[in-house]
């Protein structure tokens, strides 16, 4: 029980090393190991979250190698992992989605290609390790290492099929490395001024630093890096190609979790490190955050506008991700209690709903090879369960009342109104309107089909290959069903989610006026 935070990383990493090895023996064994490993990881994450909630101050720090700062004169010499309500919940979310992805990708990899499936599962496990590490680490350089693990695993997984995916992945490498370099330079500046890499220690020492120009430069660099990784509007171009040409079994996981973990890093950078009242860092960070808010508002609208102009469903969903993650960033930028709760709710809702959308699109593609929107004719009727899953997830992202998206938008709006930021209110309203447009277009196509302008019954949707008769294997439908159920739960039990978990996620400075 004492070692849960370490197990969260140790289990997937140990199995990541073994899986390619066992795949030389039998691919089936490799898949079994990765499934059990991810199951235990999810339990470890949930257990550590539950335990962390009981500790005073809800913060469970675990130092590696026995180098606790407390027993070494208060100097943070080792690397520390911190489990608090936000990182614990996000880690559980990541582990759960990873488990669903492994199950979902099962039937899509031919088992006869042993090494390839072993390598695929190995990379998926390292990707999960990277994301979990980024979520719960308490050390800025350690965060960079896990950022690189995530990025590299993502480059490889995305470049598997086809040469366009290779080009997209190469472009992703270039942009990702620029972002990582900016992060490192920013981190170097912070290290040069404070001498430490541990987040808790850094925030204490940063508050005594008077050089506002250097802190400003460091924060701008790190924020640029994180916004690029989150694919917010001005820096989003790499994402659409990557989501379009990547293998359909990986995209739900990457789309669902990566941008959320990076958004959490942005939250931690500003709210737990910089916001120490009265310090120069606080003042500079506030200004940088306002700029981030403006960029996020523009990206919220621009993302939706770009999504409307797309023909390919996955490219449309990629731009929709840009607009949704900038809504989360906007919540972080506004900063008061309800906006933050809105950002967390939207992040959770988007994780489940977007993963479910990509799984549904993957299922449509699996049976009918439909990629462009006009090939989706009447698929909602021929594949009813996938159609319903797509519609519910779409309604949830649109933000219609009984869904989680609505409550997230409600908190975000009340946060913006509280701050009298009418520009943000307008951006949120216009953004969700536009998101309704591009989703309604697809839903209508799914259920009513296309017209060739002559007004009589819809023409036979020409799908690239014949609609395969045998319906989807169970393992491709079950994850989708689970994701839809979670999307609905985030909506209906939103109050319990907020009062049970999200409420404790608020940083110290922000009070919840209950």
């Amino acid at each position, binding site marked *: 029980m004492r070692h849960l935070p370490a197990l969260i990383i140790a289990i997937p990493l140990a199995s990541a090393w073994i899986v390619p090895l066992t795949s030389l023996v039998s691919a089936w064994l490799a898949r079994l190991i990765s499934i059990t490993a991810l199951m235990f990881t999810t339990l470890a994450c949930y257990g550590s979250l539950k335990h962390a909630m009981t500790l005073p101050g809800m913060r469970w720090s675990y130092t590696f190698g026995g180098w606790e700062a407390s027993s070494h004169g208060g100097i943070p010499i080792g690397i520390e992992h911190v489990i608090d309500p936000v990182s614990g919940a996000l880690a559980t979310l990541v582990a759960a989605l990873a488990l669903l992805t492994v199950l979902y990708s099962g039937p899509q990899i031919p088992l006869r290609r042993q090494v390839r499936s072993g390598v695929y599962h190995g990379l998926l496990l390292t990707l999960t390790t990277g994301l979990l590490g980024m979520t719960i680490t308490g050390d800025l350089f350690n965060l960079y290492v896990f950022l690189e693990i995530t990025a590299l695993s993502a480059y490889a997984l995305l470049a598997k099929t086809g040469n366009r995916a290779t080009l997209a992945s190469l472009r992703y490498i270039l942009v990702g490395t620029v972002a990582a370099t900016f992060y490192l330079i920013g981190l170097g500046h912070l290290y040069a001024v404070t001498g430490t890499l541990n987040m808790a220690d850094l925030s204490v020492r940063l508050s005594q630093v008077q050089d506002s120009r250097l802190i400003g430069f460091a924060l701008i660099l790190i924020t640029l890096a994180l916004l690029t990784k989150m694919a917010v509007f001005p820096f989003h171009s790499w994402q659409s190609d990557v989501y379009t040409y990547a293998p359909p079994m990986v995209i739900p996981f990457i789309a669902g979790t990566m941008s959320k973990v990076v958004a959490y890093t942005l939250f931690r950078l500003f709210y737990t490190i910089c916001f120490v009242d009265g310090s120069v860092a606080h003042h500079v960070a506030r200004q940088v955050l306002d700029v981030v808010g403006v960029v996020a508002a523009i990206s919220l609208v621009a993302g939706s506008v770009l999504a409307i102009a797309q023909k390919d469903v996955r490219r449309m969903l990629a731009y929709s991700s840009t607009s949704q993650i900038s809504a989360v960033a906007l919540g972080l930028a506004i900063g008061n209690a309800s906006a933050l709760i809105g950002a967390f709710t939207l992040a959770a809702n988007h994780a489940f709903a977007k993963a479910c959308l990509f799984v549904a699109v993957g299922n449509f593609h699996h049976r009918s090879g439909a990629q462009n929107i006009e090939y989706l004719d009447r698929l909602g009727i021929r594949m009813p369960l996938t159609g319903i899953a797509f519609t519910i997830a779409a309604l949830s992202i649109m933000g219609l*009342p009984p869904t989680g998206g609505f409550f997230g938008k409600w908190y975000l709006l*009340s946060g913006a109104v509280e701050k009298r930021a009418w520009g943000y209110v307008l951006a949120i309203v216009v953004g969700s309107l536009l998101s*309704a447009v591009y989703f*309604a277009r697809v839903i209508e196509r799914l259920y009513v089909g296309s017209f060739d302008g002559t007004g009589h*019954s819809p023409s036979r949707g020409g799908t690239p290959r014949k609609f395969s008769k045998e319906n989807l294997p169970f393992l491709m439908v079950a994850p989708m069903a689970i994701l839809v159920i979670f999307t609905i739960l985030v909506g209906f039990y939103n109050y319990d989610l907020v009062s049970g978990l999200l409420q404790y996620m608020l940083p110290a400075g922000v009070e919840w006026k209950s």
Partner: protein
Amino acid sequence: MEILMDDRPLYAVLVSLLAVPMIVWSGDRENLREVWTFAAAIFKLALVLSIAAVVSKGSLVVAHPIPLVHGFKLELVADPLGVIFALLASSLWIVTSIYSVGYMRAGKYQHQTGYFAFFAICLSATLGIAFAGNLITFFIFYEILTVATYPLVIHNRDQESVLGGRKYLIYTFIAGQCFLAAIVATGYLADGNLSFSPGGILATRLPGGEYMLPGNPTILRLVFVLFMIGVGVKAAIMPLHGWLPSAMVAPTPVSSLLHAVAVVKAGAFGCLRIVGFIYGVGLMEELGLNDFLAAFAVVTIIVGSLRALGSQNLKQRLAFSTVSQLSYIVLGAAIGSKDALIGAIFHVVAHGFMKITLFFCAGSIYTRYHTYHIPRLRGMGRKMPVTFAAFTIGACGIAGMPLVAGFLSKWNLALGAIHADRTILVAALVLSSLLNVAYFFPIIRDAFLESDDPVSFEECWWPVWIPPVITACCAVILGLNPNAFVGFFNLAELAAHGIVFGGG
């Protein structure tokens, strides 16, 4: 106004939702499926009647609030205004179910299971709107109603209905977002209190008689405009009414219940809620908003009737007539005096019964002769005497003839206008009555007097021509004794009294 804590409003809302899985499960076993619809309808009406009995004695039935968002709860409060709308919706649901069974089977439509399932969802959303205790509950059911009506509008799945559906979605989504922005702003201005309370929550009346305004007046006016856009689209106030005529592509039972009673009335009802329970009549006066609203209402009444005059399609004509009739309610709310409010609230009921009769007749004509084109209705009165008799009663009611319910609401509206010394509005009411006569009576004259072949009884299947008769009789009975059945008029007076005298 003592409070009775009881979950009956919640059950009333949920009962038709529970029927949905049963309807979907029973699928193509039509008779079994219809049984579920009727059972839900009758049970719902019984529940609403029991609530009405309690409310008409002057007390409120409040369901235990369900926590929803931090600071706001899902409150279902049955107050006189809410009960009237609930009674109207649930009673007409039974009649419309009979009618739609006949209409669907006679016209051999497909997707009937989907049709009845979404119909039940719409009804539960309408009940939710009627019993909503605060703005956030109102908005949740308001949006569910929008989404649940869309599949019904595009029921025929052909090009025309899909375009109509698209237009409907665009209008209602824009309205929904403006409404949401307004609600959040009100939540902020009234610092965390969104629940409807008679006489308004935004302004506190100082003993000196004038108002202490929460924000500066321009923000209050902007928020009111946003509210009116949000509610006005559904209430088809003139610049925002575009979707209603093009939504007529839906099958006639849908147009009759939803687009004459449930959906559009939700808009008008919302307008009454905002004017009476959020802003309050006094604050409207203070900010000069009632003249602003009255202007829009009058324009809609007149231009609506003119457009009705111009259209040759019977359903289009009825649609524009609905647009103008709805603005009677908006006008009543704008005037703000007690009689005007009574007239407006009673018109909710009166117009409901009369307009549904007209739509039923249009539907039965279409089932029999597959046409809505008015010139082709010449001489049909003799072949379908019962339908056209009901049509005549409905038309007289809309025109405001005495002995039919329409007259009472117009009378009170005019009385209220005079009390609030806005006599020019009476002229508008008179002009609109003339226009009503102008676009209805030629149809009736051609139908009966033009041809001379003998009167024959070529009505279609009984469930298609009996419901218009029932609703026409109800309209007449309500005309004669407004407190028939459940005392609509008494409830209207209670509600109006609450609004004007601030829940005193």
